[in-house]
């Protein structure tokens, strides 16, 4: 399944980029996140647990997050794999930052997700809507952090 979207930040590209590279900022922006700890011996990789509600499936998913293809300050890829509630989610999202004329930054994201198990059977129709909602919350949370005093 392919998903995509754009989120507009008022901040400069450099400001957005540094927040996107900050594990603490990412961790606290993920809706429902309960754990986000670095994987031993690996840079740009974390073990994560998040509580997710999607369609009729609700509960904890455990998995890993990897960051790759990092091209400061314009682009990187997040690869996610998670399991829980009789379901398996895997996929990746590429985020591209673009400076807007007149200030601000556009973040374009392109995601590809594979969903197996219960979530595929009973949530497929609603996943796009749910994913869009969750991404809005994620980027909204990020934006709040950029604005918040350090």
């Amino acid at each position, binding site marked *: 399944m392919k998903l995509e979207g754009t989120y507009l930040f008022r901040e400069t590209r450099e400001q957005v980029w540094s927040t996107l590279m900050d594990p603490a900022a990412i961790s606290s922006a993920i809706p429902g996140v309960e754990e986000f700890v670095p994987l031993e011996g690996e840079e740009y990789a974390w073990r994560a647990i998040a509580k997710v509600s999607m369609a009729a499936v609700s509960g904890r998913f455990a998995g890993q997050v990897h960051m790759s293809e990092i091209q400061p300050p314009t682009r990187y890829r997040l690869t996610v794999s998670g399991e829980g509630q*009789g*379901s*398996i989610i895997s996929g990746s999202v590429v985020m591209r930052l673009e400076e807007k004329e007149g200030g601000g930054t556009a973040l374009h994201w392109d995601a590809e997700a594979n969903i*197996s*198990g*219960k979530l*595929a*059977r*009973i949530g*497929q129709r609603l996943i796009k809507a749910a994913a869009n909602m969750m991404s809005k919350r994620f980027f909204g949370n990020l934006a709040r952090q950029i604005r918040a005093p350090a």
Partner: protein
Amino acid sequence: MAVVGKAVKRKEDPRLITGEARYLEDIYLHGMTHIAILRSPHAHANIVSINSERAAAVPGVIGVFTGQDFMDVNPLPCPWPAGGVDNNLNTPRALEVEKVTHVGAGVAVVVAEDRATAQDAVELVDVEWEVLPAVTDAEEATFDGAPQLHENAPNNVCMEWDCGDQGGTDAALAASDVVVRQRLRNQRLIPTPMETRGCIAQHEAVNGEYTIWMTSQAPHVHRLLFTAFIFGVPENKVRVISPQIGGGFGAKIFMYPEYVLTTALSKKVGRPVKWVETRSENYIATTHGRDHVTDVEVGANRDGTITGLKVRTYANLGGTLSTVAPGIPTTLYGRMLSGAYKLPNIYCHVTGVYTNTGMVDAYRGAGRPEATYVVERAVDLVASELGLDPVDVRRKNFVPADSFPYEPSDNLLNGLSYDSGNYDKALDMALEMTGYEDFRAEQAAARAEGRLLGIGLSTYIEICGIAPSAWMFGEGWGAALWESANVRMHITGDVVVTSGSQSHGQGHETSIAQLVADELGVSMDQVHVQHSDTLGTPFGYGTYGSRSTAVGGVAVWRSLQRIKEKARAIAAHEFEADVEDVEYVVNDEGVGIVQVKGAPDKSKVVGEFMGIATSAAGGWDLPGDMEPFLDETAYYDPPDCTYPFGTHICIVEVDAETGNVEIKRYIAVDDVGKVINPMIVDGQVHGGIAQGVAQALWEGAQYDENGQLISGSMMDYAIPRADLLPSFELGRTETPSPNNPLGVKGAGETGTIAATPAVVNAVVDALSHLNVRHIDMPLTPSRVWETIQSRSNGGNS
């Protein structure tokens, strides 16, 4: 006072309406444990390892088991491979061991003190998978390079089967004025009974006996499979009880891994084990139906005479074989492709294919709806190609009423013959009820206003009363299909009938009681029909294929004749008359009497206390060496199947703006032979039409490219609602079957067999002025709308 033919209220309804009926979920045993099954989230994967430590540590968990723990239990059998050809068989195990070939295959099980604990703990079983590429389409699965599911099935082919005459049909098509070709998809359906499946098993270690309560349409067949095939124990070690069943539609005929698992576990843990399928599991673990891709070629002459029919079908069987999976798209499909028509040349080739999808097996109608869809669409395609009225093309090709018994050409039925029929009569009645000519005028007027009305016909036949054991054996079926019944008249005149057949909504307790009441001259209240428990009922092959009355009912009738003979002999002895002079009659009040012909003072009631029933049960003064009691068992194996037929007519209005199809009227004239209870037959027809319409318009299982079922809940899979359907207008003709003494044919599947093409033909008719020739099911608003748009923009197909 005869009750046969009357709309007697059903004896089983009071307990169903008041909630007193006991379903599997209502049964609790002392010390009962509960299980939850870990099912594959992948459509195709190797099982690398399973770690059950975390699950086993959960308080309340009794044990966690994997496939390795059941290697002493045989894989499930497939007793109906396709007949006369090689079959590459692959059947499931209680739990899969090395690899899975569809989402939902079980790989581990948690046994716990309660269901919630089991369900929570099963999510803690860790499986390491090696995920493999998946294929879900039957035709694509046969292509070179497609993912391979089983080592013994190259190109995923389970079997290649054919019937009819290929060379003759090719020659006939080549010589025809026109040949119409069309690809037809008969989409996969999910049966969705109100009650899901379930099983409770109890094992007594002292004597090694299992008692198994299960949602079964065929308890004796389940016992046969448990004993002879799976556990290798004799029949007396297994008792199968089928409690009240909330709908089956075929899906509860089969042996499933969960039944084997639950039963094996009851021995392993030494306590009763209960498994009840969740609705979510039902979508992925219970069999699906249909799923054919068919190329049809039909040849005709300009006057509408059909010269030949050639059918090429890929039948999707799923990841592994269910119990009778290969028999459905072969014998029950190919052999029915002559329909109601005298077709001079027929050929059908079927490839049964494994794909990474749920198992496919018989679903209400089973093969015959798929065949009827092909035939009835083909006839309409010929009419449309030649610019003829579909009614005229049907009449021109009907098997004439004076041609019965009729044997279809090219040995299509492998030696059997249509028993009786008058296809024009049913068609005439349906056209009369519809007002066909008036409708055509109304349709033309509506079209001038931009409204899209359409009418569709289905002049179907069925093959029912599936039985002749020798014939079925030749078709690959590894057992017999006779039925049996025991009738006992007790000392007070009450009658108990035990039947090997099983009732899960068909109303056996009423229909059979009507038969007994009329034949013996007792009241309906005096007759008790017992079934569904292998302890105390004679062997029978169960309920499917519209066979309970046409086969099981005849076994009852035969027992009744023997009871009557014995009653006459007892009366002759008491009256000191010759047995030839004693007759068994049912008087005007419906009371059965034995009397000496011409001597009305010498008569005695049979079914009452101190009547012949008491003489027989008491046994004080019986003739010669006669044994006491009116107690007779009979078996019945018919010489042929039965062949119901009829005409269904559907009138639709298509909304050109939205593509929505509204069914305005639905007229059904069915001939199911002699009718015992018209209300029960009407009910069967109603339900069948609803299911058939639903396939045409709404239902359809959807898999994504990874083999994930994405229509796996009631929110995502459409089942028909009453408000989407009109009040059906039913009519009936009655052509008795000469193949059995009751003249019955079978009524359980007519609706699903007839309705689907009637609806599709109606929608295509509504759009015929746009040069639409065919739309694949389901005819959802989006699909119909897209078709209208593509044609309105000058498109063509």
